[in-house]
């Protein structure tokens, strides 16, 4: 199905927003001003956006430690996110969560997660909730090729099938679980989707570096899971991680020229620009205008984050309980 001009511009803007958010973090982290561990999503934007462009605020997602892209794609406020990563009191989580724990439950974003493999069971619970409500909403659990090896993910897949949860397991295979290659760590013939299939789910596969592949695949997956009674499904997207496991990772595991090659041939933003301009759906000028707009948004977010109130010692004690 042909996307409207507005939909194309919006999808591109979302991907570009994630890209520049991450590229800017990569620079700012090196100054030492940003504390803690940061895991960048750069390179995988087509997956988050290709999935979330189908979702409403009633649909839920559960994210990972590499969660900035999912958060932005699901509609988390860019200023609030930047402020959170800078540890500001005005951040989305008041500076108490940081990069690995950004959430906005009102937007259906049930949290990034610092524990690899912890998200899938939570997504099943959210998917059971969607099933109970019977309104065709779904819960999406994002997992990487690392999380696919956790027992929690296996338990979650079986539980989702048994309970017919309205849940979709989205596996983003970026080829590295931390510093280890998936060809070593994923035993099932380098393939993740076949595991989900073995648990009794319908599965799909797509190119996670191509927005249109992700978007069209997800249309089919969602059409299936939104039908009451169908239960869960899974999809594996082959994608690329442009940075290391964490910021500061020297990436000694990469092959010669690997990063240059994947940036050249597997960049979802370049592919998007090429395909929409060749098909004359958008012009180069249209896309340049979005780029400029995004750069300004990122500048603004960083400026706001730097100027924002810092948390105080008293803030340590609040928000543990609603009442105690």
């Amino acid at each position: 199905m042909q996307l409207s001009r507005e939909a194309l511009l919006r999808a591109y803007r979302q991907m570009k927003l994630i890209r520049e958010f991450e590229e800017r973090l990569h620079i700012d982290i090196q100054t030492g001003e940003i504390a803690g561990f940061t895991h960048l999503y750069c390179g995988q934007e087509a997956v988050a956006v290709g999935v979330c462009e189908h979702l409403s605020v009633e649909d839920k997602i559960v994210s990972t430690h590499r969660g900035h892209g999912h958060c932005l794609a699901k509609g988390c406020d860019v200023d609030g996110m930047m402020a959170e990563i800078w540890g500001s009191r005005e951040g989305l989580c008041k500076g108490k969560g940081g990069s690995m724990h950004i959430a906005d439950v009102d937007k259906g974003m049930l949290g990034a997660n610092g524990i690899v493999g912890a998200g899938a069971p939570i997504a099943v619970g959210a998917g059971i909730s969607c099933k109970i409500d019977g309104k065709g909403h779904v819960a999406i659990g994002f997992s990487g090729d690392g999380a696919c090896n956790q027992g929690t993910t296996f338990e979650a897949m079986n539980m989702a099938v048994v309970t017919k949860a309205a849940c979709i397991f989205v596996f983003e295979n970026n080829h590295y679980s931390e510093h280890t290659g998936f060809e070593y760590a994923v035993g099932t013939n380098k393939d993740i989707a076949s595991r989900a299939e073995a648990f009794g789910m319908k599965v799909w596969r797509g190119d996670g570096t191509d927005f249109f592949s992700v978007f069209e695949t997800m249309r089919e997956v969602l059409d299936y899971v939104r039908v009451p009674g169908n239960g869960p499904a899974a999809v594996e997207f082959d994608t690329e991680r442009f940075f290391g496991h964490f910021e500061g990772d020297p990436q000694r595991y990469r092959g010669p020229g690997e990063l240059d090659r994947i940036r050249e041939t597997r960049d979802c933003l370049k592919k998007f620009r090429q395909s929409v301009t060749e098909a004359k759906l958008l012009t180069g000028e249209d896309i340049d205008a979005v780029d400029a707009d995004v750069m300004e948004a990122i500048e603004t977010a960083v400026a706001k984050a730097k100027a924002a109130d810092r948390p105080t010692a008293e803030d340590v004690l609040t928000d543990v309980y609603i009442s105690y």
Partner: protein
Amino acid sequence: MSKMMYREAVLSTIVEEMERDPNVVVLGEDVVGGMGTAGGPEAIGGIWSTSVGLFGKFGGDRVIDTPISESAIMGAAAGLALSGKRPVAELMFADFIGVSLDQIWNQLAKFRYMFGGKTKCPAVIRMAYGAGYNAAAQHSQAVHQILTGMPGLKVVMPTTPGDVKGLLRTAIRDDDPVIFLEHKALYGVKGEVSDDKDFMIPFGHARLSRAGQDVTIVSTGLLLGFCEAVADKLAAEGIGCDVIDLRTTSPLDEEAILDSVEVTGRLVVVDEATPRCSLATDICALVAEKAFASLKAPPLGVNPPHTPVPFARELETAYLPSIGKIEAAVRKVLSYR
């Protein structure tokens, strides 16, 4: 008031809350008990009979029989709670926190804080705990000492059927995650229970089950009854004991403990957890810090030894705090100087 068993108080409270609020859902292993069998769907109704009839009454959407997947059960409870439901999840044995602790500790307990206070997580995790059934090291443990130390959780340990009713209702209506610990040896105990379908006992309010001037005994759960037996025996000798049933270990009713010790000057904490970093050490430290001037004797804990729970009858009997051990501890603090 009605008279019913501890397990019946659990079940009837769940039924009443499920009737009141359609968002309350139950999940766990064998909570229906018989799915996929010739004798099913409900052949068991939970191995503790605390979910008998729920499936027939409320259906499979709200009474979710799960595979043996404790991490997924706890995680599903977390996802349900974040999605606006009020899950009451059953962990068949408290010992199984070992296979599901991440979802309890790193997820449920921390969502609200990590997310900057912008969410609620109204999940109840019920679990059967405690020794006395020769179930050995992996099916007999008290786990409150682990969970009480986790910020973000509330930990409830009811002793009587009446308290089960009031505390479980509070737990289900609470917007924070609550661990609800049910002692296996108490399931068959009968007691008076309120018929008021809104009867609630607030957390952090201990119950004074015996009143006296000479010694403060603090406990909860199965061992509370042992403490009462000791207090009754000593009362005949003219020795008065305050016996405090904590009801909840998090929040802790510090005021009840400190007020009592300020009068008695003597403290014995009777705790089913192993002794290191236990409820007993915690409360003894609290009293040493905040009621030091009142003390007439060093505070004393009565715990099992620093061993796993043993199997054989003789061994388990030797392991658990007994009426005799509690009495000896009370006499020890009475005879100090």
